């Protein structure tokens, strides 16, 4: 069964502190993973995907197949990072189907 787990529903850190949002997945195939972000009153936006190994807005995420994890990290949090973050796993079911985690609400305190 395909599953994405984000163990923290809420995460609160101070501005300038490091941030790590955890994501673990369960999938028998070759995983393709994404992080999506939803700022207040805005649509879900793609933040980054593991295949491009990019850094967006200072965030990075490394796929660890041994630990089946895809944690999102940023060394210095900024207030504008406050948002809802979703980890998603792409599974092939005829079309690309994204299975989302439960989401983590990140709050950056001044």
């Amino acid at each position: 069964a395909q599953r994405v787990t984000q163990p923290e529903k809420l995460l609160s850190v101070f501005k300038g502190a490091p941030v790590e949002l955890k994501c673990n997945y369960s999938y028998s195939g070759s995983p393709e993973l994404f992080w999506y972000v939803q700022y207040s009153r805005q649509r879900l936006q793609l933040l980054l995907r593991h295949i491009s190994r990019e850094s967006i807005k200072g965030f990075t995420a490394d796929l660890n197949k041994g630990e089946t994890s895809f944690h999102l990290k940023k060394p210095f949090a900024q207030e504008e990072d406050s948002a809802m973050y979703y980890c998603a796993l792409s599974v092939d079911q005829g079309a690309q189907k994204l299975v989302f985690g439960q989401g983590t609400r990140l709050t950056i305190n001044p």
Partner: protein
Amino acid sequence: DTAVSQTPKYLVTQMGNDKSIKCEQNLGHDTMYWYKQDSKKFLKIMFSYNNKELIINETVPNRFSPKSPDKAHLNLHINSLELGDSAVYFCASSRDRGTGYTFGSGTRLTVV
């Protein structure tokens, strides 16, 4: 120019009514989706269409019927609305695997 647009943004309606939500994308993507976000913010796929053909149909009550007149449009019709249908419904589209989705801004449906 909005890439994936949904209408309406808000919909308040009484139990038992029938309503539709429309979605259009101008990205030239072949695949479109409907997702439901419940009150706990959990996102779950409902349907996926590829080039007007139904590809994914998750366990959704048959009161929900998607319709894709062409590959740029995917509408969602809901019959006999129930209180539990209250949620935010997101439309999305994608080009192919590995590229992720582009989401619409969501339709907040409230059934009273």
